[in-house]
């Protein structure tokens, strides 16, 4: 049986890669994919702890996180389509209407 900590370390690395993508890219779709990467890292943590403590609740939470990620992807990509129609770009720096 593989130690739980190894899964947690893999999850931490993937989460840090996702943070890096969100902070350094300007392409909206790429930022969105980085967010999906972070969501998956958290899912891996849930499953690792579920196996560690023999709890089914972690698995149920992964199920809900997947459903919410699907909803988030649908709405977010619709927002980017709308932004592209108005500004001809998906550069997030161009979407500065509500910026302080």
């Amino acid at each position, binding site marked *: 049986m593989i130690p739980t900590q190894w899964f947690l370390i893999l999850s*931490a690395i993937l989460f840090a*890669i996702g943070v890096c993508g969100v*902070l350094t890219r300007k392409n909206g779709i790429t930022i969105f994919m980085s967010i999906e990467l972070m969501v998956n890292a958290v899912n891996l943590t849930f499953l690792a702890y579920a196996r560690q403590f023999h709890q089914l609740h972690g698995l149920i939470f992964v199920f809900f996180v997947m459903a919410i990620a699907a909803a988030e992807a649908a709405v977010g990509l619709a927002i980017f389509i709308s932004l592209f129609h108005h500004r001809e770009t998906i550069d997030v720096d161009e979407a500065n209407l509500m910026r302080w």
Partner: protein
Amino acid sequence: MIEYAVFFFFAAVAVIFAFVVILHRNTVVSALSLVASLFALAVMYVLLEAPFLAALQVIIYAGAIMVLFLFVIMLLNLQKMREEPTRPIQQFLGYAGSAAFGIALVYYISKYAVMQSPVGPFIADARTIGITLFEAYIFPFEMVSILLLAAIVGALVLSARGVQSS
């Protein structure tokens, strides 16, 4: 022994393709790398004795969500679009900050996350998950269905162009 080899191989695949996702300039390549990374994570779920969620990961994430991403990329014709590089100070702070964050996480996990496991086998097949989902979690389950309905309506309203309310 074989499961350690599988773990290290697919962990390497997941991390390498995750780097390709955030570093490659072409959005289509990024999306396909994300599919590969999610497949590697599905193998991790199998190693964690959750084959049902591994199947869900492949079907929902690598199937449905990534097809949606690729569809939007193709629809907006983004693969030829040039992306302005971010400011150097933002690049530096992003890479340094996330590297420090990741190193700190790995350090604290390897130092402090030592725990005892209860005895007995852990059963997480589709049957037990289904019973838990439809008994203890029936209300959140229904809430998720309403959330998905709201997401459908929201996506339709946001992406409809030039449709005026009559």
